């Protein structure tokens, strides 16, 4: 079986790709996609630790299921916010969203 550290390095790389996307992308929908990548990296970690450390108790699986639920809720609310902003501003570029700036 593939050793645990390979899964951990893969998930760390996926997390950092998502981090780069969150920092560097200008489109709000693209930032949301990058956040999904980061949540997936966390889930790979949880499942890998479950398989290699506590395979008799489904702790990591349960946490991964809850992360899945939170990701679904976050995507729904985030995309609703983006649609609402698009109706008002006619764009979804985050650096031009300055409604709260004095």
């Amino acid at each position, binding site marked *: *079986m*593939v*050793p*645990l*550290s*390979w899964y*951990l*390095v*893969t998930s760390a*790389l*996926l*997390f*950092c*790709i*998502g981090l*780069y*996307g969150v*920092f560097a*992308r*200008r489109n709000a*929908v*693209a930032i*949301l*996609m*990058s956040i*999904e*990548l980061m949540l*997936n990296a966390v*889930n*790979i970690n949880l*499942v*890998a630790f479950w*398989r*290699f450390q506590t*395979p*008799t*108790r*489904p702790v990591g*699986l*349960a946490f*991964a*299921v809850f992360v*899945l639920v*939170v*990701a*679904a*809720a976050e*995507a*729904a*609310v985030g*995309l*609703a*916010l*983006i*649609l*609402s902003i*698009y*109706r008002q501003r006619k*764009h*979804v570029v985050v650096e031009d969203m300055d409604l709260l700036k004095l």
Partner: protein
Amino acid sequence: MTYIVFGFFGILTLGGGILVVTSRNLVRAAASLVLSLFGVAGLYVLLEAGFLAAAQILIYIGAIAILIIFAVMLTQRVAAENRAATNSQWPWALLVSALTFALLVYIINIVWPLGIRAANVPVLAADPTKGLGMALVDWGQYVLPFEVASILLLGAMVGSIFVAREHHDD
């Protein structure tokens, strides 16, 4: 053989992820996101978490990716698409991400050298999916987070309908 399959799904996951954060066309980025999520589902299968792999394909690819593609279609204007995909701080973002990755690899391989050896992988429980299902409704384990998660989903549903509805000035 396992290593080849791991490499295939790992390259699918990471290559899809890189395309998500770099491609200028958002529809292409969403399609790459589907590829990446499919690769993650393959990694779950390799980790013998079959239920999570199925849930990943159903929820992420079937629901979230489709939702994102809908949002791309609803908010994209063709005329505005020749602007750059990244903001002016992208070299700093690249630097911070690379440093974070270096730190994580250092921690994984040197500070806590877990699982460097491939041998002595523990034996799986008899039916992990059944164990997960029992744990989620067991009074002593996860029944409270389970109910809170369902309320969170209900609240998110009501909230997103409220936020995204058409505003009529009256």
